[in-house]
């Protein structure tokens, strides 16, 4: 620590810290543009010049390390003259088009101009004009306003890990941008909107929609991955106008994914469900809530046998919704509730960890020295966790992936790309290389494999690392041999001393376990004495009545085709949904419109086990109502006990009591069956869920749907396999899976291994297909 003096005020500071860090900490404002606490120092804007005693020239506070006894003046005549000088230079070529600029009112340049600017310009020459370039559907550019702070460039290089933006040309002609017409494709790209201190980079969907001073800001929690990024929702009246990050160093720092930033557009899609509806004689009718709820309650009661009722809940539902959904279901005498809608292998049931989680704090990911990710397209599934993983990799961690597709990574890592059954064998080989024998199914699989050089390399990296982790992602969770992958991952973790982690799929995948929204778990993640059937069995053995909470048939289930036929054969399907769709309308009998993201209060438990509650920011659209209220009324109508909640907080607190003392636990029990369901004779489908197909809301977020990551469903296959199947790029082909068909276009993709065909799930055109991972045949259409 050193002692310095700033404007006569004595301060203690960490030796080597930059002056601006110290003044920021002390609440002393120094204007700046290029400096950003999360980015490298560029010291180029020269706005933060301050006077340092005995220095001959003003020094940039962002790049001047503090030294013992340093005397600094941030508002002295010398400092102010320097700051004013820079401001004048920044403004001479700035268009000063604040009245038509979206940044107006929240512009750092405007703010600093108030303190450092002059009211009259001395510049009488022509101003610079920079032609606009289209950089994609998310970010609007107006580069004439750019002040060349390079925050966006540094963000790309240092945080997003993709150099997409650059500064081309030199001097006054230097232009920040992509040089060629090219979209910015990073999954974190929207953060440059926040970073841009002026109106050069603004939100395209938000463009000209509102002025900053018309908006009110409330807090929220992001609903599309298991991080629970903290948000600021910007509202005008009863409408969410845009979403921005709220700083939380322990979770999302100051970033959010594009998915969390732009999904709000889905709130206002045309197919939003805004009135209760019932189907009579095949025709949908709008009805009152009273009629719809009475019908739902009567229909459920009519089924009579509890085990004939099943509830499918979206893992993106709030903790309160999940808790009440299981309460209503169990009140009907059924344990048939499941949130694992995208899971196909339930052979671990009972032996799977009751309260599985990341295994680490989010901030601990960057301290890893080695990581093995199994079945995880981390960047797309969990952008913020991927950012943390990248930080580890950039500082030297050895990161390995075992996946059924080659990933586009933004750091150096090793990737084993193999078939689904190859994934099991690769992971088993790592276990073997570590000397693990495993038990049950794991033992059998390990016994049969040879530890090759790749496996040995991964094994030694994991073993040698002080901090290592084995993590299972969304692809693993949807793998036909998930039970065996879990057992093997556990064996690898045990043998290498690594932490086992689950990158939970959705905002409340972890919370659902605490809420008891699983057939074998009661609230508080307690084992149920009477177990219900898992999600797959509930479809393979169709029930008479189904309750859907936030789940959409055709899109949110592991086996879309099976799901639809199960629902179609039921006597009663009650959908509590935010949006409608032809598939939902075909399957359901009663549709109850529920509040979507931002419209209801609730709680998410993120993958690190942190509870985060949020309040409703806007009123639900139309007659939609918060699902917790709908479920409460349903409980009342079904004469269930203890269903008299007056607030979601009350529901949460009741559950919290039940969860007291419950700690996360990733211990995996014994998997018995060693049958490899992923071993198929022909081609196997890789049905990953693309980031913008994840849930009802993002599927309807129009700007996100125009991005590269929202490509339409296609048959992605490598050139070799395509040749074998007699297919060429852009051909139209028929996919047959479990006797169901879909016609899609062929896309040759070198990232897909032999024996595999990637047909992503959750996309239009795939509703009729079968399991996310399963045998398919292809034929030219």
């Amino acid at each position: 620590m050193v002692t310095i003096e700033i404007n006569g005020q004595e301060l203690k500071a960490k030796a080597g810290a930059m002056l601006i860090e110290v003044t920021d900490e002390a609440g002393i404002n120094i204007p700046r543009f290029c400096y950003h606490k999360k980015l490298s120092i560029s010291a180029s804007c020269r706005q933060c010049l301050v006077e340092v005693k005995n220095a001959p020239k003003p020094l940039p506070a962002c790049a001047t390390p503090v030294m013992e006894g340093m005397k600094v003046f941030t508002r002295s005549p010398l400092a102010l003259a320097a700051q004013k000088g820079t401001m004048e230079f920044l403004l001479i070529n700035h268009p000063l088009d604040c009245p038509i600029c979206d940044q107006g009112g929240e512009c750092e340049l405007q703010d600093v101009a108030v303190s450092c600017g002059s009211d009259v310009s001395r510049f009488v020459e022509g101003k610079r004009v920079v032609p606009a370039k289209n950089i994609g559907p998310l970010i609007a550019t107006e580069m004439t306003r750019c002040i060349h702070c390079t925050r966006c460039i540094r963000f790309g290089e240092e945080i997003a890990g993709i150099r997409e933006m650059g500064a081309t040309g030199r001097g006054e002609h230097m232009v920040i941008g992509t040089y060629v017409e090219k979209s910015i494709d990073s999954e974190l790209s929207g953060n440059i909107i926040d970073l841009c201190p002026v109106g050069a980079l603004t939100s395209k969907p938000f463009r000209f929609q509102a002025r900053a001073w018309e908006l009110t800001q409330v807090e929220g929690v992001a609903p599309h991955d298991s991080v629970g990024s903290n948000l600021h929702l910007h509202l005008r009246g009863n409408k969410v106008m845009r979403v921005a990050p709220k700083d939380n160093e322990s979770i999302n720092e100051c970033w959010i994914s594009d998915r969390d930033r732009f999904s709000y557009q889905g709130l206002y899609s045309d197919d939003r469900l805004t009135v209760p509806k019932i189907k009579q004689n095949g025709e949908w009718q709008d009805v009152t809530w009273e009629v719809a709820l009475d019908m739902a309650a009567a229909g459920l009661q009519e089924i009579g046998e509890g085990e004939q009722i099943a509830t499918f809940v979206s893992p993106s539902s709030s903790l309160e919704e999940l808790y009440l959904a299981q309460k209503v279901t169990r009140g009907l005498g059924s344990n048939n509730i499941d949130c694992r809608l995208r899971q196909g292998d339930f052979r671990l049931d009972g032996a799977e960890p009751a309260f599985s989680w990341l295994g680490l704090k989010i901030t601990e990911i960057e301290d890893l020295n080695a990581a093995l990710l199994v079945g995880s397209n981390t960047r797309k599934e969990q952008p913020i966790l991927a950012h943390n993983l990248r930080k580890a990799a950039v500082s030297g961690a050895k990161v390995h992936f075992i996946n059924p597709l080659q990933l586009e990574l933004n750091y150096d890592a090793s990737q084993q790309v193999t078939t689904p059954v190859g994934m099991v064998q690769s992971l088993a080989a790592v276990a073997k290389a570590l000397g693990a024998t495993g038990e049950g199914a794991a033992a059998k699989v390990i016994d049969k494999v040879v530890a090759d050089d790749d496996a040995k390399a991964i094994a030694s990296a994991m073993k040698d690392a002080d901090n290592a982790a084995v993590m299972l992602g969304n692809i693993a969770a949807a793998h036909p041999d998930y039970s065996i992958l879990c057992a093997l991952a556990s064996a690898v973790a045990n043998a290498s001393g690594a932490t086992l982690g689950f990158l939970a799929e959705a905002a409340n995948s972890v919370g659902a376990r605490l809420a008891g929204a699983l057939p074998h778990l009661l609230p508080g993640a307690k084992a149920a004495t009477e177990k219900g059937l898992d999600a797959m069995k509930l479809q393979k053995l169709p029930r008479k009545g189904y309750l859907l909470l936030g789940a959409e048939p055709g899109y949110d289930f592991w086996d879309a085709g099976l799901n639809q036929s199960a629902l179609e054969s039921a006597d009663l399907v009650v959908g509590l949904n935010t949006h409608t769709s032809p598939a939902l309308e075909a399957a359901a009998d009663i549709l109850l419109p529920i509040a979507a993201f931002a419209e209801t209060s609730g709680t998410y438990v993120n993958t690190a086990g942190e509870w985060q509650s949020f309040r409703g920011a806007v009123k639900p659209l139309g007659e939609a109502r918060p699902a917790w209220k709908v479920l409460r009324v349903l409980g009342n109508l079904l004469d269930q006990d203890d269903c008299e909640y007056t607030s979601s907080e009350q529901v949460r607190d009741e559950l919290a009591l039940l969860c007291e003392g419950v700690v996360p636990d990733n211990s995996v029990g014994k998997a018995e069956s060693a049958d490899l369901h992923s071993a198929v004779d022909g081609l196997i489908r890789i049905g990953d869920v693309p980031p913008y197909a994840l849930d009802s809301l993002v599927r309807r977020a129009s700007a996100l749907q125009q991005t590269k990551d929202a490509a339409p469903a296609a048959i992605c296959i490598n050139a070799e396999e395509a040749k074998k199947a007699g297919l060429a790029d852009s051909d139209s082909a028929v996919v047959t899976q479990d006797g169901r068909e879909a016609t899609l276009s062929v896309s040759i993709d070198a990232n897909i291994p032999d024996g595999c065909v990637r047909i992503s799930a959750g996309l239009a055109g795939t509703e009729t297909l079968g399991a996310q991972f399963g045998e398919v045949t292809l034929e030219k259409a």
Partner: protein
Amino acid sequence: MVNEVCLRTLDLDRPWLLEQYQSRGGYEVLSRILKEKTPPEEIIEEVKKSGLRGRGGAGFPTGLKWSFIARNAPGQKYVVCNSDEGEPGTFKDRDVLRYNPHQLVEGMIIAAYAIGATQGYNYIRGEFWEPYERFEAALEEARKAGFLGKDLLGSGFDFELHAHLGGGAYVCGEETALLESIEGKKGQPRFKPPFPAHFGLYGRPTIINNTESLASIPMILKEGGPWFADIGVKNSGGSKLFSISGNLNNPGVFEIPMGTPFSELLEMAGGVKGGRKLKAVIPGGSSAPVIPGEQMMDLTMDYDAIAGAGSMLGSGAVIVLDDTNCMVKVLERMSYFYHEESCGQCTPCREGTGWLYRVVSRIENGQGRQEDLDLLNDVAARISGRTICALGDAAAGPVTGMLKHFRDEFQYHIDHKKCLVGAG
């Protein structure tokens, strides 16, 4: 005492050849150092004693610069030569490269030995194709003769040296921009600290010296630091290459002792062309503030004398202007240069150089306004001392210098919308 150091082989038939260089004792100093395993500290000490100051323009003591390197720190270190000669008026390093490349190579090897570097680069401006080829040929000869490569002359010391060609950017003459450029990036100067001695090329400790500075090393070590120092005057050791151009009968490069009167240099350059009156001199490259001719005639060519007259010796590029020149036009051209060559990264230089140029250009074109001269001084002051590198200062210096000495010419332009020189 002319042509004693860098141009000492100029009288030979083809002085760029190894055998010719060796005929004047070339590589003997290096051989002696390698054979005797001269302690590096001694070499640095000798360079310090020579009073050699960076010949690229900044004038920083070379020996001192070398001593900043942590010689015994593990890992790669680099010696980099700055042959990105680009300061308008400067054309001396081109002659070193063309006529005495081996002396530069020898100097670089000695520098590498002194700081413990095993790899060096010579950054040659991209337009210098002929000098580049001469330098490459010299490298090839030196390699064959065992002066470059592994285990030089059986000493156990390794050193490899390559040329790197620039691509046309004045700012790469700034040492950290030059390093960025070798790293395959835009030539944007780095913020300092850290200095290259600690974080240089590829993040490793690096010394960067000008071509002339490094080419002076063999003679300094041959004849001793004091010998070199004594050629010159106090604070300005040695002789120096002066590039003298402009309105002259015999412009060219002259290697003369520091402290030589300007009048003698002018005489060597054949005097002002056509016997016209000496109007002004830009004594150290275009970024050096102009000095009126009469004042210049009383000055000597050394750091202190030129600094005392409010300018700088810089790279020793002397531009001589006769009385037919319009100073507004001269400044307009110089300001255009800095505006063109600003790298663009920091605000005052990116925005200010264009502003300066446009105002001067308006005045030159008869659209000057009464407030423009104060504005120019003020804008120059707002650039000066507030940028990452010295290009900002370089752009400001000519403006303030011209307005200090020739304000009346500018005022005449504004008042009469025409040139005083033409009108006179």
